[in-house]
C-alpha cells in the first residue's frame, strides 16, 4: 500500500516542497472544466467564511455569541476546496471548528449566524450553538465537539451509502488533535476492513488547542505516511491553496466512487487566530503566525485569479462588497430573531 500512497500523493496535488518543508508553490491546471464563475465562487466562499468569522468574533466580544467560539480564519481553503469537489448526495461530517464547512456547503448564512446567537431561527433552533451546526437536508451532519467523536458517525453514514448501493460518499473533517484518540485508529481500520466510501480529511493546523504536534505525537509531524498501516491511500496537500485542495479531493472522490474504498487527505494549514476566541496563544510565538499570514489563502487566491486572467481588481472588490452585505444582513437577522420558545426545551429529546 505504500506504493499507492505515494502514487496518489504524487498525482493529487502539484504542491512542491522545498527542503525546509515550506510549500513554495502550487498550481492547478486551468484547462479543466472549471469556468470563471466557479473560480470566482471559490473566492466568494472563502471570503464569506473569513468575514463571517470576523463578525462572529465581534459579536462574541459584544456578548451576543456565548459558549466556546472556534474560528476558521486561515483555514478557509481546506474546507472550500474539499467541499467544492462534492455532490449533493454526499454527506459531510466535521469537528467543532465547523462554520467554514457549513458555509462552504451552502448552509443558510442567516440561520447559521442565528444559531450562534442561540436564536429560535437558528439551524438547530438555538440548541446546538457554534460547535454543533447541522443541516440534514444538505447532508451536513454536524459539527461535533468531542475530539474524534465524529469519525465513527462518518463511517456509519458511509456504511449506509454502501449498504444502499448508492455512489454517494461521506467526507469526514478532523484536526491533528484527533489523531491521538483511539477512536481515530479504530475507525481507520474499520473503514479499510469494510472498504467504506469515506474520505478522511485531516486539517493539520499544527496545533491541538495549545499543543504543537511534536509535543504530543511520536513519529513526526506528517500524518499521511502512517496510512500505509491501514492500507488507506493517502495524499498530502497544501491547505493554503484552494485549487490544490479541490484537485486532491476530486481525485480521492473519484477513487471512492469507483469502489476503491476509503481515502485520506492531509492538508497542511494554519489558524491565524487562537484555538477559541478566549485563547491568548501563550504556546506559540507571533512570529510563526505572521509567517503563515504571508500565505493567507484568500490573498494568495486573489493574486492567482488575477494572474490567471480570471478576474481583475474590480471583480474582487465587487465580491467583497457583496459578501460584506450578506454577513451584515446575517448579523441583523440574528439580532432581530426571537429566542426559541420555552416549549422548545422539551422538544427533540426523543423521536
Amino acid at each position, binding site marked *: 500500500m505504500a506504493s499507492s500512497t505515494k502514487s496518489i500523493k504524487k498525482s493529487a496535488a502539484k504542491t512542491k516542497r522545498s527542503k525546509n518543508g515550506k510549500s513554495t508553490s502550487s498550481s492547478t491546471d486551468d484547462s479543466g472544466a472549471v469556468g470563471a464563475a466557479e473560480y470566482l465562487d471559490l473566492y466568494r466562499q472563502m471570503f464569506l467564511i473569513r468575514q463571517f468569522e470576523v463578525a462572529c468574533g465581534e459579536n462574541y466580544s459584544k456578548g451576543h455569541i456565548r459558549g466556546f467560539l472556534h474560528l476558521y480564519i486561515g483555514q478557509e481553503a481546506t474546507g472550500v476546496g474539499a467541499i467544492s469537489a462534492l455532490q449533493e448526495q454526499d*454527506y459531510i*461530517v466535521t469537528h467543532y471548528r465547523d462554520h467554514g464547512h457549513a458555509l462552504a456547503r451552502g448552509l443558510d448564512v442567516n440561520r447559521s449566524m442565528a444559531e450562534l446567537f442561540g436564536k429560535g431561527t*437558528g*439551524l*438547530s*433552533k*438555538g*440548541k*446546538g450553538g457554534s460547535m*454543533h451546526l*447541522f*443541516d*440534514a*437536508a444538505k447532508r451536513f*451532519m*454536524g459539527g*461535533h465537539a*468531542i475530539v474524534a*467523536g465524529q*469519525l*465513527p*458517525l*462518518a*463511517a*456509519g*453514514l*458511509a*456504511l*449506509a*451509502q454502501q*449498504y*444502499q448501493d448508492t455512489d454517494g460518499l*461521506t467526507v469526514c473533517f478532523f484536526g491533528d488533535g484527533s489523531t491521538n484518540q*483511539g*477512536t481515530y485508529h*479504530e*475507525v481507520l*481500520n*474499520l473503514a479499510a*476492513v*469494510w472498504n467504506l466510501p469515506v474520505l478522511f480529511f485531516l486539517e493539520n493546523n499544527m496545533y491541538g488547542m495549545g499543543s504543537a504536534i511534536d509535543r504530543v505525537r511520536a513519529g513526526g509531524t506528517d500524518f499521511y505516511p502512517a496510512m500505509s498501516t491501514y492500507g488507506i491511500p493517502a495524499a498530502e496537500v497544501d491547505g493554503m491553496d484552494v485549487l490544490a485542495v479541490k484537485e486532491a479531493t476530486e481525485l480521492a472522490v473519484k477513487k471512492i466512487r469507483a469502489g476503491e474504498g476509503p481515502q485520506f487527505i492531509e492538508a497542511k494549514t494554519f489558524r491565524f487566530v487562537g484555538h477559541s476566541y478566549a485563547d491568548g496563544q501563550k504556546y506559540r510565538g507571533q512570529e510563526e503566525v505572521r509567517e503563515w499570514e504571508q500565505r493567507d489563502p484568500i490573498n494568495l487566491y486573489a493574486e492567482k485569479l488575477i494572474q490567471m486572467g480570471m478576474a481583475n481588481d474590480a471583480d474582487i472588490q465587487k465580491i467583497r462588497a457583496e459578501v460584506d452585505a450578506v454577513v451584515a444582513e446575517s448579523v441583523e437577522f440574528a439580532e432581530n430573531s426571537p429566542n426559541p420558545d420555552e416549549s422548545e426545551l422539551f*422538544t*427533540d*429529546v*426523543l*423521536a
Partner: protein
Amino acid sequence: MTEIAMREALKRGLDEALENDPNVFIMGEDIGEYGGAYSVTDGFLKKYGPKRIKDTPISENAFVGAGIGAAAGGLRPIIEIMSISFSLVAFDQIVNMAANIRYMSGGQISVPMVVRAPTGAGVQLAATHSQSFETWLAEVPGMKVVCPSNSYDALGLLRSAIKDDNLVVVAEPALLYGARADVPEDYYEIEIGKADVTREGSDLTLVSYGYGMRPVNDAADKLSAEGVSVEVIDLRSLSPLDVDTVVNSAQKTNKLVVVDTARRTGGIMAELVAEVQERAMEWLDGPVVRIGSTDVPWPYNRDLEQTALVGVEEVLAGVRNGFDL
C-alpha cells in the same frame, strides 16, 4: 404457547426483523462466524449473509458509532455488545453522540438503533464482566433502556425496540438466557415505558426488573404461602421509568420494597424511591425498603459473589425488617 428460552425469544425477534425489513442489519463482535458469545445470532450469517450480519473488529466505540451513522443514513442497525461492561468503551458514542444528536440538531437527525448487551453478575466472571450499566444509561435523556426478565417480555420489548425511532438499549440478564417461559405464536409487542403488574396483592408491593425478578418472585411465593397478599411489579423499562404504576401500587398496599440485583448505590431504585416519596409519602406505612447488591467490585469466588448478589433471603430479610409482616 410454546415454552422457549430467552435466547430463543430474542433470536425470533431478530430473525423476523431481518426477514421483514431490508434496512435492518446486525453488527457486533463475533456475531457471525462464531454465532455470538451467547449464541443469540447463531445461524444468521448463513441465512442472511455478511452484508446484514456484520462481524466487527474489537472496537466498540467505532462500531457503535458506525451504527449511529448508519441509522442517521436511513438504516435500522441492531448492535450486539458482548457485555454491558464493554459498553463503557463505547459510552462516548452512546451518550455524547446517539443520545444528544437529535436535540443538538434541533430534531433533524434521529437514531433508530438497538443496542443489545448481556448484563449482570452471578456467573463468576469477576469485576469487569459482571456489572449492570443499564442503570447508568437510564439517566441519559434522548434514549431508552429496557431490561426483560423472561422470554415473553424479551420478545415483546425487542420488537418494540426495533420499531422505535430512538436508540433503545436492551439489557439482557446473562443469567436468564436459558430461562424458559411461555411465548405465544401470535404477534404481540410490549410498550416501552410501561411497568407490568405481574401479581396483584394488597399488603405489600415488591418492585424489581430483569434478573431481580427471580428473587422477588421467590420471595413473593414464600410470603403468599404465609398469607401475605403481595403485589409484584416488573419495571420492564428503566427509561422511560413508569413511576405512576409504582405510585398507584404503593397507594394501595402502603408498603413498598424495591429490589435491584445491580449495586445498591446510585441505581435506578434510588431514583424510583425518590419519586415515590415525593408523590406518595403520606400513603406509606413506613420508609421504602431498598435492597441492592453489595457496593463492591464483583468478586470471582462463588461464595463471595453470591454473598454480594441479592437473593431471595435478602429480599425476605428486607421485608421482615421493614414491616411487621
